[in-house]
């Protein structure tokens, strides 16, 4: 039994097959990379795992439990957290309130939720910004807050959807640090990312998809040298 | 059986006019994504314009079709420009503030008319108001038949406008994706004014067509706002073809209900249909056509 696995995961929007027979598994403590050109179906995979879309066929298993058919909020309760490619801050709440809201996932006590939120914000090095309104944050801080928010639900598995896009090189370096720190804290991570050096640096294993189908898998070095991957990104000569 | 067919015919005839009014609201819904809760009140204003033309200038209600809808087009465009569009820039907690604005507009229109004409019932009694002809055993009310035919003509011209002209295509593009339309160089603000104006004009035409048969009073708008709104839901929020179907369904259902259930509950029948659609068919009638 794997920590997390999908089996022949498929999603069709009408006639368009966005995700086609994708099978992969992630072991506990891994950082797993999911890459592919724009529109290849990476975010759709995340949306299937977190039940934003119903699955057309295939199964998802998490810690031995079949996840098919669970609503989004229950997926979160089971221990899968996520961030969004296009960040979704709760705009008219402060940073602390945003993170407290998600901390309520595991407690109904306000003081406990606050404590958990502060702890997570400290972990993410955002303690100076707790009283900032979310809508006034820079894009870097929004992405970081979204990670903090996902962490406050105490996930076992975290899905990060392009958390580095649009960040400055310094912010990217800090982000890589943060992801490592999360892994060291015992969280398994699946990461969708376009910025190659980030993926190559962080991931233990990588799955590359294009047009919703697997085209390569393996260690970062193996995938980077795979002919299919190079063609998918750069086009055929 | 005869009574059934008679009822059905009456329902279809009135349904054609309902469809005309409903399309107006659907158009506004499609482009602005708001329910126009002043729709029936705009129609009511048009009816009073027609009434004044008849009463004081002796102008035939059908001729008023050339006056009332254009007048309402201007009123509608002005409402969109000066009252609805400015709200887009205001950040508020309540996302439906444009809808609420239309409620306010509806009240002001009703009360203005009440102020000018009092709450008394008025009617336009033309020589042909009660004229009928018979085909077989079924009797046809002349103004209703004319209203139906004109409603079909007007609806067809609207479709021609939306499908074949450049401006019409811009309206449809804006309805589909406002941001993309703006990138393509469509002046969305202008399109919204045009759309609200057109929507109001369609309602105005419907009201004018109904006038030879209906009593007129300031509060006549409210029930028609609700009818238009039911049609919009029946049609599936923003589909013009759906609105035609919705209008006919509502007309027939009301007519059957009034004959076989109770005259007093006629207005409730539309509401019940609305709820049934909401529960079982949230995409509206068009959901049936594309499974």
């Amino acid at each position, binding site marked *: 039994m794997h920590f997390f696995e999908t089996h022949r995961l498929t999603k069709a929007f009408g006639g368009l097959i966005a995700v086609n027979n994708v099978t992969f598994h992630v072991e506990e403590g891994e950082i797993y990379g999911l890459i592919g050109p724009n529109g290849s179906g990476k975010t759709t995979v995340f949306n299937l795992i977190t039940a*934003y879309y119903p699955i057309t066929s295939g199964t998802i298993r998490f810690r031995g439990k079949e996840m098919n058919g669970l609503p*989004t*909020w*229950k997926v*979160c309760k089971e221990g899968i*957290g*996520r961030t969004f490619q296009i960040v*979704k*801050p*709760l*705009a008219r*709440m402060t940073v602390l*309130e945003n993170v*407290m*809201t*998600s901390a*309520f*996932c595991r407690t*109904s006590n*306000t003081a406990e*939720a606050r404590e958990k939120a502060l702890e997570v914000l400290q972990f993410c090095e955002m303690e100076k910004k707790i009283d900032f*309104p979310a*809508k*006034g944050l820079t894009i870097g801080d929004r992405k970081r807050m979204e990670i903090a928010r*996902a962490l406050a639900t105490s996930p076992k598995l975290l899905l990060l959807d392009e958390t580095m896009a649009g960040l400055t090189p310094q912010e990217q370096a800090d982000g890589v640090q943060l992801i490592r720190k999360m892994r060291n804290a015992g969280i398994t991570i699946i990461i969708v990312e376009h910025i190659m050096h980030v993926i190559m640096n962080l991931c233990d294993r990588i799955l590359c998809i294009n047009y919703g189908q697997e085209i390569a898998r393996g260690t970062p070095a193996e995938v980077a040298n795979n002919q299919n991957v190079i063609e998918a990104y750069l086009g055929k000569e | 059986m005869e009574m059934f067919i008679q009822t059905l015919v009456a329902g279809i005839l009135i349904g054609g006019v309902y469809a005309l009014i409903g399309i107006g609201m659907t158009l506004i819904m499609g482009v602005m994504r708001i*329910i126009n*809760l002043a729709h029936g009140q705009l129609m009511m204003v048009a009816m009073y314009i027609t009434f004044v033309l008849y009463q004081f200038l002796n102008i035939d209600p059908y001729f008023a079709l050339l006056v009332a809808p254009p007048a309402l087009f201007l009123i509608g465009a002005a409402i969109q420009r000066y*009252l609805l569009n400015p*709200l887009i820039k205001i950040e*508020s*907690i*309540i*996302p*439906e*503030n444009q*809808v*609420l*604005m239309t*409620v*306010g*507009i509806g*009240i*002001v229109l*009703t*009360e*203005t008319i009440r102020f000018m004409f009092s709450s008394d019932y008025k009617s336009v009694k033309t020589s042909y108001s009660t004229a009928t002809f018979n085909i077989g055993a079924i009797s046809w009310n002349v103004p209703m038949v004319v209203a139906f035919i004109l409603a079909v003509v007007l609806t067809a011209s609207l479709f021609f406008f939306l499908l074949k002209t450049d401006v019409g295509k811009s309206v449809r593009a804006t309805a589909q994706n406002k941001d993309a339309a703006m990138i393509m160089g469509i002046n969305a603000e202008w399109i919204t004014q045009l759309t609200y104006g057109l929507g109001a004009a369609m309602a105005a035409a419907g009201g004018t067509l109904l006038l030879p048969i209906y009593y007129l009073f300031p509060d006549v708008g*409210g029930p028609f706002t609700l009818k238009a*709104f*039911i049609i919009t*839901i029946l049609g599936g*929020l923003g589909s013009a073809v759906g609105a035609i179907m919705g209008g006919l369904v509502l007309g027939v259902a009301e007519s059957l209900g009034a004959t076989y259930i109770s005259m*007093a*509950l006629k*207005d*409730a029948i539309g*509401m*019940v249909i*609305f*709820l049934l659609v909401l529960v079982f068919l*949230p995409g509206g009638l068009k959901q049936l056509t594309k499974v």
Partner: protein
Amino acid sequence: MKSLYAKIAVLALLAVFPLFVGSDYYRHLVIIALMWVVIGASWNLLAGYTGQVSFGHAIFFGVGAYTAGLCTTQLGISAWWGMLLGGPAAMLVGILIGFICFRLRGAYFALATIAIAEILRLIAIVWRDFTEGMQGILIIQTFRSKVPYYYLALGIAVICMLLIYKIIKSKWGFYFIAIREDQDAAEALGISTFRYKSLSLMVSSFFTGLAGAFYMNYMGFIDPEVVFSLHFISIMAILVSIIGGAGTMWGPSVGAFIMVMLQELFRSSFFGYAPSWVSHAHAMAFGVLVILVIRFMANGVVGDWSKITNLWSKGKPAALVTNGN
């Protein structure tokens, strides 16, 4: 702390008001205002905090009022039983509406509430054997003095505000606001948006129903056109909240007093100082007010307070966030 003292002062003032003001007319106005505090706060919990805009709170008000009235006409028991049953009855209707509408995203809830209020109004008119139809329900009031009603209204308002305050500061409050801000994000944080929208609606419909039952007992008369009115209940509930400040804790209370005062000013032609036609224009004034408030004060007296004070002292930037203070 300062604001806490202010609230205690206002409460104390309200508590001693009938002792110093003997006029039934003014007592009546404050009683009605207190009733609107309850309805406004209820609407605000659902729309201002949870983001589910109801255009038909008359549903719950009317069901509460009719529950009380029917206790007398149908069951032959005191309409005061309505104070116990009115809230739960309205809540039951709320649960049903939530069950139908909250599964669907988009404007369905707002639309359904208008339609359901209209259906109930028509039923109340047509089903004469049960509801007395347009004739309405007339009962004999228990007290001739306004004072018992006054303290009852004050009690209900205080309990309602305290409870809603507690809710807003608790997990529910955070969840409600999260749903208002972004439903997708809320689901990802483990929030069952369906369940919490329903909970918000339950609380909201309960208190609105209670206010309706109170209205029946206090006024002694209801008819379908009054208690199921789109304008004077449903839209009034929205106006009360918006003029005071939707999504703020105390805005609707402020709005209730402002709206009742404004309505009375028009109804009485500014206490007789204005020409008498003004009283006929009170519906018009209501409509104009809707337009003006939405156009210029979308966040209300409390929400736009900084904007209002800025009119006098220009220059300071408006505060960015005002969440539930």
